[in-house]
């Protein structure tokens, strides 16, 4: 029997970490992810895990320690937010290019400035090209479940890439919800032991890690990394199928909500998808054919699945909780429309809404204005402004 609990997102992830019992956790506190290493360090102090907890002096050191530990053959984890991940920046790329299966919980928070501790996706979106797999979580349950699946994906022989599990700062990380935990022994069996294919501490098979890699080989290594990211799509689905067998909870690359006959749809990540589902239910009661697409996986980007999900819509709004500040759109819009275009899905009208930056509350009414705008576009055929800020004071 699974365990019924009520936990915040941070507690849920710290619990998942405890159940996985990794070899090394190296972390530095930053709001709103601080509680994860805080709870975890109490598990270490209480002897509930065997983990070596490294209390580092910065996030750059946190990721460096994870890289060192992972290269040594250990299972290594961390958690951070916002500017903390900004400080990890150069090490993010090195972790990915060195093919080290590190798992990180990123509690999404806006990257300052202006100085702000609240939620948006500017941290993870900034790191979208760093070579990390990115999986987003709508709820505490999803943050927990995604974290339990992360090692299996990262450590798979066809992938060998670091994984970032994202959850919304405060909204998910600090809100307490009901949650179903998996029993410790089942987690242990599901996640399994980590056997590194090579390790710095394996004295019988010495290796050098992170050598200078110039014109002769760097390009081939990047191509190899690209292949690993392509392979990750299938592995994420396989791991999700196994997870479903264990828990009954179904996950895929994207989640489609009321999309079978949807004429208008919103594409949105993380917790706002929950608010949008509520709005979809209300609109459906009025007979409006509204739907929702929630990309669970952003890296690798589910090009085929997103294009296929939207192909019968008349109008689509892609919602970005981060702006690319390119005078054109947010990053999710750019990638969704690119996916639609290359797959020949060109009939839906598509608009972009930037929303909720710096933790601005996005209510059901705000989401409803987006669906209303889509209904107007369907009625009039007039798209109007593509690049919009939702509910900004003006």
């Amino acid at each position, binding site marked *: 029997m699974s365990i019924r609990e009520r936990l915040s997102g941070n507690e849920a992830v710290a619990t998942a970490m405890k159940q996985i019992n990794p070899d090394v956790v190296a972390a530095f506190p930053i709001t709103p992810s601080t509680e994860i290493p805080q709870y975890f360090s109490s598990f270490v102090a209480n002897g509930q895990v065997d983990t070596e907890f490294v209390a580092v002096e910065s996030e750059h050191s946190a990721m460096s320690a994870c890289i060192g530990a992972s290269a040594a053959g250990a299972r290594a984890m961390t958690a951070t937010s916002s500017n903390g991940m900004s400080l990890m920046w150069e090490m993010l790329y090195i972790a990915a290019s060195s093919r080290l299966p590190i798992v990180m919980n990123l509690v999404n928070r806006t990257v300052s400035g202006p100085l702000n501790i609240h939620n948006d996706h500017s941290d993870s979106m900034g790191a979208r090209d760093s070579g990390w797999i990115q999986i987003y979580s709508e709820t505490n349950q999803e943050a927990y479940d995604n974290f339990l699946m992360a090692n299996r994906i990262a450590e798979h022989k066809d992938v060998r890439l670091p994984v970032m599990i994202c959850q919304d700062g405060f909204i998910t990380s600090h809100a307490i919800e009901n949650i179903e935990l998996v029993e410790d022994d089942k987690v242990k069996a599901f996640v399994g032991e980590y056997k590194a294919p090579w390790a710095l501490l394996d004295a019988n098979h010495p290796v*050098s890690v992170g050598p200078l890699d110039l014109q002769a080989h760097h390009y081939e290594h990047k191509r190899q990394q690209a292949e690993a990211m392509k392979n990750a799509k299938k592995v994420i689905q396989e791991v999700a199928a196994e997870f479903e067998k264990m828990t009954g909870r179904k996950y895929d690359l994207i989640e489609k909500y009321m999309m079978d006959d949807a004429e208008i749809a919103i594409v949105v990540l993380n917790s706002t998808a929950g608010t949008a589902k509520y709005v979809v239910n209300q609109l459906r009661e009025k007979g409006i054919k509204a739907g929702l697409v929630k990309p669970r996986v952003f890296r690798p980007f589910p090009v085929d699945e997103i294009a296929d999900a939207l192909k019968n819509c008349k109008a689509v709004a892609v919602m970005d909780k981060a702006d690319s500040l390119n005078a054109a759109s947010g990053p999710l819009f750019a990638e969704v429309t690119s996916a639609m275009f290359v797959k020949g899905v060109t009939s839906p009208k598509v608009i972009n809404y930037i929303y909720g930056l710096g933790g601005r509350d996005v209510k059901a009414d705000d989401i409803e204005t987006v669906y209303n705008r889509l209904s107007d576009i369907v009625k009039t055929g007039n798209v109007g402004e593509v690049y919009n800020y939702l509910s900004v004071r003006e």
Partner: protein
Amino acid sequence: MSNKYDIVKPNVKWQDITEGGIMEQPGNAKQFNTGDWRSMMPVWHEEKCKQCLLCYPVCPDASVMVDKETGKMIGIDYEHCKGCGVCTKTCPFGAYDFVENK
């Protein structure tokens, strides 16, 4: 573990190159000829050498060659000597000249 050392060549395909650029064989710096970086070169004069071996530990490129059997200095490995000249400064007996590389 497979030894992929022999395939790390300029023409290796991405499918065959080691993951993340790891090198699976130790001591492979020997395969990298740094001797052609040299603009100055040390010249060792055996007749002036007292076999004190002070030059041996200071060489940053392990290019002072010592015979394993006799323990005596036998010459300079010009395939790896970068011509830094530390050996010539260290020698108390003037057994080295430091001249333009030819």
